[in-house]
């Protein structure tokens, strides 16, 4: 949509700019350095801090002008302003001086120091000498849990934290207290911050009030970190991150702006889950089991080669891929074992669900939206998914989407979207229609127009009904009660009226729900709507693995002399224990390539250490179908190698040609493109290792990286050449290109005068807009040709509560249900005990109370769980925490029996 440009005059020069933005955003995108605090591109403006002052002139004859706040001023045609008028500059400096009056002398021990927006702004305004000679007001701190450190003295009252936490992310437990000079930002009492997005406070806060507590344990200044563009591996959304290393350990993860995916934000699982990389459970050496009875022993690489070579001679080699391994690693494995022996290594339910979702997305009936597009939806229907726990950033995007109605209303009366306080004041409780059907309460329910509590069958039936109300061609559902019919009608109406209808399903759902969704999409399409479908898949590369050919677990047949190769996969989290035990027992040799010790890797005969996302590179396909690449933050330290490199070694041992031709990462990508033409876009779009900026590699380290000649001097005073990276266009040193690289290769955000992560603005066309050269990642499933489309007719039977036992549905947890992040130190402290949620009626039936520990038996699997009473759970149903550490895998939903212990 092209908009007419407007002309504004800044300090005598005329610029053509886009209308509808505020003046601050406009000036920032033009490259002017205007200081600001309370404004944040994702939060909008409130005009609270008074720092972004500019001078506005009435007309060309007006020589005096008046000072206005640029964040509250729209960029309109004919505007004449000055950003460097001496009066304005003095004004900004005096504002900053006042803000600094109570700021403590903390910088040397403050974790924000060196990437502090307040420091940047202080330097920018030129306030450099403290004149305020009186005592400083002080505050007590609060312990806000394992993620966020609180240091209230440093606060400059910009209100960004509460605006983000409450207004943007819907948190309830952080607020502002006190008045005047005593304003306090914190909780009403000490305690862990409840929001899934609390980590963003560390980046949103312009100073060091909220800082990353996991970083604090091994603190390193921003300038000392070796960074790489990375992709979050903890869910399927594929948020872009910057992962950073110092002294051989991963130090932190921060946001890397991607206008199409995560914008400026990350969820706590993504931000703090990185600690697993430094876990004591890491496999750092090859291990070998001499005979089936003996224990695993640590060996040299050369010592395991004979055993590997023997194992790989077997006629029957079976490979298990993994949804948390990169495309390249999975592809390499399928080459090793042969495509006919390549198994996806996920539960059959998940396998078929993923394949079905892919089929729906590629059918042409429905669009797979980016998070940016999700934010633009104005009617949303969520079926059977607790998005907040399975794809938190998707939930956050949905939260923003519900504001669209109020934004439209505001724009109608001339309040622009960025005028945040005014829009919210006007909105009150107006939300875009959001409908949630889920077995239990989800955090998004508070925004929903209606909620429907039911099991997957009933949710699917609701979905089928909605489809039938949108289009008469869709099969109708019999025996619906009148309430549900009305609800379905209401949902159908809202979707029909909406410009951008969005349907959300996910891993907690089943194939019935996916069928219903497909019907809704098809029905919407038949009335010329463009429906979107967002699917919360379980893992970072679930979609990528789904695209690849491979077999489900159920088709597995094991011969006696089978060699099993398991790639980054804990099968015990995928399939019932008895099945896996049975499988592993039958196999002659079990080769496991993994990063962390888990139940599967501890059963390996040959255990091979592989690099995590921080020590390898690879491509992941997110739930949208967007292929994105992560790069080594630091080189894998031998014998740890990238999975694809180890597998290439295995292929070499096996004697296949790929073994020798796969020397570099790009070689594997090239082979992959030949086998899977759909991935050819990856090769075209993502820069290969030969890419150079002005004949230079892109530097992973900042120009101010310190300690080069001392950091390894304790080992040897003779300095080594920095490690070379043949697999990517990035360099492991401070030598190299330091400017704005292609968006997918941005190792850190920095610009002269902008040391905080808000330097990201300099990498964009406009704040909160697209990155220069386009947002990272390439969509693989797009513009698919319309296949033959017909409505699904297999409507399930309604759910009936059983007399014997409860219908157990999985309850995913943001902290704990994902394997890798659960091994992080801070994050693991947030993992709940295994629990079961039932309503009071069922609890009374079984005469159990809240917090009781009970035995739950599902098909011979017994698990000890804590009881939580949750009124939202329907009768006859219970929610069981899903795949928490220490819990056996149970394929849900199933009937289970509770016994008091």
């Amino acid at each position, binding site marked *: 949509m092209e908009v007419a440009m407007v002309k504004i005059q800044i300090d005598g020069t005329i610029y053509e700019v886009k209308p509808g933005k505020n003046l601050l955003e406009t000036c920032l995108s033009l490259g002017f350095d205007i200081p600001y605090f309370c404004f944040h591109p994702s939060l909008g403006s409130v005009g609270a801090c008074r720092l972004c002052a500019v001078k506005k002139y009435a007309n060309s004859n007006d020589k005096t002008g008046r000072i206005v706040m640029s964040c509250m001023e729209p960029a309109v045609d004919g505007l004449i302003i000055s950003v460097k008028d001496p009066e304005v500059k003095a004004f900004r400096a005096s504002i900053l001086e006042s803000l600094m009056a109570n700021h403590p002398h903390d910088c*040397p021990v403050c974790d924000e120091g060196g990437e502090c927006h307040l420091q940047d702004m202080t330097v920018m305004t030129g306030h450099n000498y403290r004149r305020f000679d009186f005592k400083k007001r002080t505050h007590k701190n609060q312990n806000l849990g394992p993620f966020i450190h609180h240091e209230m003295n*440093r606060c400059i009252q910009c209100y960004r934290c509460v605006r983000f936490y409450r207004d943007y992310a819907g948190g309830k437990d952080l607020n502002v207290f006190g008045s005047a000079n005593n304003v306090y930002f914190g909780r009403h009492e000490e305690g862990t911050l409840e929001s899934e997005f609390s980590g963003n406070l560390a980046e949103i806060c312009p100073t060091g009030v909220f800082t990353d507590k996991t970083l604090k344990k091994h603190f390193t200044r921003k300038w000392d970190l070796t960074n790489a563009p990375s992709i979050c591996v903890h869910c399927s959304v594929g948020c872009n991150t910057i992962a950073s290393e110092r002294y051989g350990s991963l130090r932190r993860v921060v946001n890397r702006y991607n206008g199409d995916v995560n914008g400026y934000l990350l969820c706590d699982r993504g931000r703090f889950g990185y600690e697993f990389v430094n876990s004591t459970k890491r496999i750092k050496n090859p291990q070998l089991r001499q005979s089936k009875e003996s224990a695993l022993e640590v060996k040299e690489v050369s010592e395991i080669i004979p055993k590997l070579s023997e194992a790989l001679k077997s006629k029957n080699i079976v490979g298990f891929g993994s949804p948390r391994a990169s495309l390249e690693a999975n592809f390499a494995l399928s080459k090793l074992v042969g495509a006919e022996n390549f198994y996806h290594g996920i539960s059959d339910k998940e396998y078929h669900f993923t394949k079905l979702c892919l089929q729906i997305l590629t059918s042409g009936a429905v669009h797979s939206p980016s998070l940016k597009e999700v934010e633009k939806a104005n009617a949303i229907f969520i079926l059977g998914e607790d998005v907040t726990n399975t794809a938190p950033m998707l939930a956050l995007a949905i939260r923003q989407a519900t504001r669209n109605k109020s934004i439209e209303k505001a724009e109608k009366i001339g309040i622009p979207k960025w005028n945040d306080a005014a829009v919210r004041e006007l909105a009150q409780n107006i939300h875009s229609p959001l409908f949630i059907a889920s077995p239990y309460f989800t955090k998004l329910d508070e925004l929903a127009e209606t909620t429907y509590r039911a099991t997957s069958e009933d949710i699917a039936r609701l979905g089928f009904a909605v489809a039938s109300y949108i289009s008469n061609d869709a099969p109708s559902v019999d025996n619906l009660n009148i309430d549900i019919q009305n609800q379905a009608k209401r949902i159908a109406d809202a979707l029909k009226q909406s410009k951008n209808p969005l349907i959300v399903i996910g891993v907690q759902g089943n194939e019935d729900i996916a069928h219903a969704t497909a019907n809704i999409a098809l029905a919407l399409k038949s009335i010329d709507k463009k429906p979107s479908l967002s699917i919360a898949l379980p893992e970072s590369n679930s979609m990528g693995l789904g695209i690849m050919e491979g077999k489900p677990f159920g088709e597995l047949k094991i011969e006696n002399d089978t060699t099993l190769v398991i790639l980054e996969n804990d099968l015990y989290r995928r399939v019932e224990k008895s099945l896996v035990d049975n499988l592993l027992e039958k196999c002659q040799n079990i080769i496991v390539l993994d990063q962390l010790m888990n139940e599967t890797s501890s059963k390996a005969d040959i255990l091979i250490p592989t690099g995590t996302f921080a020590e390898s590179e690879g491509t992941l396909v997110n739930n949208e179908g967007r292929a994105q690449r992560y790069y080594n933050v630091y080189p894998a330290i031998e014998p740890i190698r990238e999975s694809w490199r180890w597998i290439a070694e295995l292929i070499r041992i096996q004697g296949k040609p790929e073994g020798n031709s796969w020397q570099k990462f790009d070689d594997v990508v090239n082979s992959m493109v030949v086998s899977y033409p759909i991935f050819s876009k990856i090769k075209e779009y993502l820069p290969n290792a030969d890419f150079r900026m002005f004949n230079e590699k892109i530097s992973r380290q900042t120009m101010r990286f310190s300690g080069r000649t001392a950091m390894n001097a304790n080992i040897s005073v003779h300095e080594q050449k920095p490690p070379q990276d043949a697999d990517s266009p990035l360099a492991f040193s401070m030598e190299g290109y330091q400017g704005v690289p292609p968006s997918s290769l941005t190792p850190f955000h920095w610009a002269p005068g902008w040391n905080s992560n808000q330097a990201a603005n300099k990498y964009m066309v406009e704040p909160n807009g697209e990155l220069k050269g386009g947002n990272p990642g390439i969509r693989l499933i797009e513009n698919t040709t319309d296949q033959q489309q017909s409505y699904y007719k297999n409507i399930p039977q309604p759910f009936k509560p059983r007399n014997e036992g409860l219908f157990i549905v999985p309850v995913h947890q943001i902290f704990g249900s994902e394997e890798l992040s659960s091994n992080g130190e801070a994050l693991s402290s947030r993992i709940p005990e295994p629990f079961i949620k039932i309503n009071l009626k069922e609890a009374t039936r079984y005469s159990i109370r809240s917090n009781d520990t009970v035995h739950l038996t599902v098909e011979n699997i017994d698990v000890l769980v804590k009881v939580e009473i949750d009124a939202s759970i329907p009768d006859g149903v219970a929610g069981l925490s899903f795949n928490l550490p220490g819990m056996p895998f149970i394929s849900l939903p199933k009937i289970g029996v509770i016994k008091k212990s």
Partner: protein
Amino acid sequence: MFSILRSIWLTFLHAFHKRETVGYPEKKPYLPPRYRGRIVLTRDSEGNERCVACNLCAAACPVDCISLQATEDENGRRYPEFFRINFSRCIFCGLCEEACPTYAIQLTPDFELGEYDRQSMVYEKEHLLISGEGKYHGYNFYKNAGVDMGVKAKGEGENEEPTVDLKSLLK
């Protein structure tokens, strides 16, 4: 022509001048206290490490020969877990001392750092840390900072008002 002869003559006369060279090491020259020699880490008047591991010295170092890692004690007090200076790289420019916000890192007049083994030029914290305050006495960073890291409670530092009582309506 004359000037050439004059130069020769004047140079010859230098044979009778006093020599400028000092016979080091038999005779030690005087070095002022602010001479830039061996680097030390000092302690505050209470005998605690002054270094707060802020990394500014490392950042200022033009040859990048300082490397350290921050850690915290049970009170949250920041101090360096290790602090390493590679003196085989050090150029004794003194920028680290200038950058130091806590007077922890100081240069001393000791310049006799010769070693036969280059590895011995790598100094760890135990080699750098002295028991005294060095050139600058009486300063304790944690008393002037806003943080409470076991040195003073919130609101009890120099230049601080008592903490705000949020439950009070009187303010």
